[in-house]
């Protein structure tokens, strides 16, 4: 016969975002506990509400599996004296194992006979073993812990009760002053404390006390209730999964309801209304069939439908007050001009060590124009970019963004349009923050993309300039995310940009226009290149590029991020080619020999054809020259193909030519030839890193 074990940890309300991961953690720890303790089990289910974390184990064995174990004791010569009597050593050993000398057998190991015991460890009853679940409770870890009362113990929230039942029997243990038992708590207001007769009754008993302990069921109830409201009113609703999960973890017994607000607030931008409803009140907003936002909302009460009118009118009142506030800011903000706001940015700090927002904008104006020209924006686009970069942070000092910081950029776009800015300028203001997460949307407009790049390059360069370089998990200004945004935007736009060249150009530009504000933008070019390379590695990793190709591409001498994407792609494709292995071997043979030449990176290399001794040398020389001339005009992929196609000539060259000859002049001439070729190879990648089979 198998058994059911139930354990519920009763807590004060946990933060909504903690509930699901903690439930999963509890399952994992319980499974580990059961495995380590040799208790076989079938199904493990888990339940959670804001006030409880529960695990239920079904088909649990009545006792631990027995163990037969061979234990080695002393060597035979130590265990017995000359007369064959058991020595103290042998007697002590068997006593320690709770067996007798009669149980001793001898076995040979590495030519020596030893005392052995076939030990049998009978399984303990599950009820005894499960008292160890106390440690599962105390071992749980959370993102924030707290102390309470005068306990030294820390937990996510104070613990109030623990249920631990094996079928109908309490598994006794104690955490702090709380003894495990069979008593659980119902809904705070609708239910009462109640004793569980047996573990398997858990869900039903709690449901009788207005607690839906299964989060999947709560979610299904909420979804059905919302759909009912939506259908009855012919609305549409978008069930944001994050909000839905949060709401599921804010209630024990859900009842969805809808409320209204005054239609006059719809004059404000949708984003303002949505932020007030969704982020501040955890409401779902609704639209009509045509997608227009409606003056209604849906929320979920932690309770039943009794006195729902009170709840609705209370929530309507709260939302009205919030919207009233927002409308106040919306009206007030429009009384000032963009120029007023920009002037106020002079006293807004970007960072204490770096300077003000206004100073940052002065730098970004220059950087954006340089970038815009580099990526080929039209004259009109450059004009829009200039205007956008002069004002793009202005909304930070508006009342609305002060009150709703999450609307930065969004309000900038709205207010810019209201003040007659061109749509492209307004859009760029909003888009410069993008992407806001590793997989967030990218700017749709070119002007927005360039402004986003310029703003991010400036942030990274200025934090590096004051020595605030992210390390380990410490990246308070999300510079890694911004750098990754740069990588994604460049890839999305297929824009060519060499990080080191651009950083150098930027430093000179800022210097020339005297907007460095005493920071040295030129001194961190290599660390920034490394920082960007690491983000490239992340990008390649996300796109399943083989790591040897990633190493090869990052190990090359190519600075242009776009060319790195291309190089990775062409190497990935060419790998399928039948002659790939031979081609790479020929090219890496060149790299190995060129390495012996020890030419400096900047050294001018030229080959003297007069020193050639065979046709193979001449042929390679001419072919390489052609590739070399074509390289700047060609894509990385074309260059790689051209290099790959040199294989027969390289093979013929090595067939006919001894490179490391005694004649110094000839040797140097040949090494020079190979070094020139190696430099060309390195513009694609460091092919030495490739694994070819």
């Amino acid at each position, binding site marked *: 016969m198998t058994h059911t074990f139930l354990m519920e940890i009763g807590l*004060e*309300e*946990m*933060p*909504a*975002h903690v509930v699901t991961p903690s439930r999963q953690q509890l399952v994992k720890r319980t499974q580990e506990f059961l495995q380590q303790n040799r208790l076989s089990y079938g199904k493990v289910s888990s339940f959670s509400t*804001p006030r409880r974390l529960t695990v239920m184990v079904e088909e649990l064995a009545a006792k631990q599996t027995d163990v037969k174990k061979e234990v080695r004791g002393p060597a035979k010569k130590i265990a017995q004296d000359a007369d064959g009597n058991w020595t103290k050593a042998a007697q002590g050993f068997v006593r320690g194992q709770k067996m007798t000398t009669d149980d001793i057998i001898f076995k040979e190991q590495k030519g020596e006979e030893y005392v052995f015991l076939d030990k049998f460890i009978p399984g303990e009853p599950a009820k005894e073993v499960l008292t160890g679940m106390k440690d599962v409770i105390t071992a749980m870890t959370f993102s*924030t812990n*707290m*102390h*309470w*009362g*005068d306990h*030294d113990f820390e937990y996510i*929230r*104070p613990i*109030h009760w623990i249920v631990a039942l094996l079928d109908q029997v309490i598994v006794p243990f104690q955490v702090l002053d709380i003894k495990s038992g069979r008593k659980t708590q119902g809904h*705070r*207001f*609708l239910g009462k404390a109640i004793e569980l007769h047996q573990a398997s009754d858990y869900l039903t008993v709690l449901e009788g006390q207005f607690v839906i302990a299964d989060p999947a069921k709560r979610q299904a109830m909420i979804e059905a209730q919302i759909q009912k409201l939506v259908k009855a009113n012919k609305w549409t609703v978008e069930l944001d999964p994050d909000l839905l999960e949060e709401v599921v973890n*804010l*209630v024990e017994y859900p009842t969805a309801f809808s409320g209204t607000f005054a239609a006059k607030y719809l004059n404000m931008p949708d984003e303002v209304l949505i932020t007030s409803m969704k982020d501040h*009140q955890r409401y779902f907003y609704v639209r009509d069939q045509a997608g227009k936002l409606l003056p209604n909302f849906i*929320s979920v*009460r*932690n*309770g039943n439908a*009794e*006195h729902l009118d*009170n*709840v609705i*009118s*209370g*929530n309507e*009142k*709260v*939302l009205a*007050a919030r919207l*009233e*506030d927002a409308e*106040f800011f919306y009206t007030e903000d429009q009384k000032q001009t963009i120029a007023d706001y920009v002037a106020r940015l002079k*006293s*807004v*700090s970007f960072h*204490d060590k770096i300077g003000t927002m206004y100073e940052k904008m002065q730098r970004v104006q220059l950087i954006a124009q340089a970038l815009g020209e580099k990526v080929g924006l039209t004259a009109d686009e450059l004009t829009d970019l200039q205007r956008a970069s002069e004002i793009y942070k202005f909304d930070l000092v508006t009342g609305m963004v002060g009150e709703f910081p999450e609307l930065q950029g969004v309000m900038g776009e709205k207010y810019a349009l209201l003040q007659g800015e061109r749509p492209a300028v307004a859009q760029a203001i909003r888009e410069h923050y993008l992407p806001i997460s590793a997989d967030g949307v990218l700017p749709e407009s070119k002007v927005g993309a360039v402004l986003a790049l310029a703003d991010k390059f400036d942030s990274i360069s200025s934090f590096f300039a004051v020595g605030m370089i992210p390390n380990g998990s410490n990246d308070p200004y999300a510079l890694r995310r911004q750098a990754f945004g740069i990588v994604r935007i460049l890839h999305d736009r297929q824009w060519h940009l060499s990080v080191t060249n651009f950083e150098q150009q930027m430093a000179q530009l800022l210097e020339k226009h005297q907007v460095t504000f005493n920071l040295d933008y030129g001194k961190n070019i290599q660390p920034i290149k490394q920082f960007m390379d690491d983000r490239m590695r992340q990008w390649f990793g996300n796109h399943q590029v083989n790591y040897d190709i990633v190493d090869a591409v990052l190990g090359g001498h190519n600075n242009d991020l776009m060319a790195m994407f291309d190089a990775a792609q062409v190497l990935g494709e060419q790998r399928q080619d039948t002659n790939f292995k031979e081609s790479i071997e020929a090219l890496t043979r060149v790299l190995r020999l060129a390495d012996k030449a020890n030419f400096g990176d900047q050294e001018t290399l030229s080959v003297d054809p007069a020193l050639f001794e065979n046709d193979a040398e001449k042929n390679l020389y001419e072919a390489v020259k052609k590739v070399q001339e074509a390289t700047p005009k060609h894509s990385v992929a074309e260059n790689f193909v051209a290099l790959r196609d040199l294989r027969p000539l390289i093979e013929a060259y090595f067939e006919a030519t001894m490179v490391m000859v005694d004649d110094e002049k000839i040797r140097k001439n040949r090494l020079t030839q190979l070094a020139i070729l190696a430099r060309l190879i390195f513009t694609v990648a460091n092919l030495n890193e490739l694994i070819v089979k």
Partner: protein
Amino acid sequence: MDQKLNIQDMILTLQRYWSKQGCMLMEAYDTEKGAGTMSPYTFLRAIGPEPWNAAYVEPSRRPADGRYGENPNRLYQHHQFQVVMKPSPANIQELYLDSLRALGIDPLAHDIRFVEDNWENPSMGCAGVGWEVWLDGMEVSQFTYFQVVGGLNVRPVTSEITYGIERLASYIQDVNSVFDLEWGDGVKYGDIFKEPEFEHSKYSFEESNQDMLLQLFDMYENEAKKQIDNGLVHPAYDYILKCSHTFNLLDARGAVSVTERAGYLSRIRNMARAVARAFVAEREKLGFPLLKQDTEKKEEN
């Protein structure tokens, strides 16, 4: 709502209720401050091993929140009802919910939730874990288990409940503007506070003498530091409160740049930390008298 309590009845109800739970009824502390937490009856008493149970109304001044008496919900000065209990009782949430019942708020007729909100007051070196309590979607109280006060890890832990009196009263009396609330005997909140709201807003935003305030801040800071050195904890603490309020006035006036802001806050924090340590030392010298009394009380029972 069965009964529409006016504000003074609300306060009386809360006082009676918490007094029955063993809280001493203290009076508002007579130095300007931004929140009930900054009263020495919370800030200082939350530090150290001695038990402490107190409840009081605290008028709280936030110059930057002034709206000339024109905004129905925002005030230069609002009132908090503050309850602190140390060590935090195991049933503190139930005690709180019963206090709402005492005010005539039946949880079954409303939606009451504890929504995570970890509280922090960096200028006083304070941090805690807890919730805001939502009543039908409106935040009516802040519920905090103090973890750090004046930069010191605290044990035992103090539980703090802060009721926003105007908010709660607006709900109970069902009015849309705080100025329409009845304070007592038919007199409206607006009759008492509308003019002061206007004047304080005008003063804070337009008329305050910045040079004087800047000088005062320095003088108060010097005095606070000197008195910490002299071991005069309570006078020192009063001057720290004055620094804090003076800073708030400067801030409302826009006289403090973002960069300077951080500097001022850290000056206040340093003093708050020093006075917290001095307070523990002082109580220790006295032999933590409330701790002794507590033990004696328990032995008698």
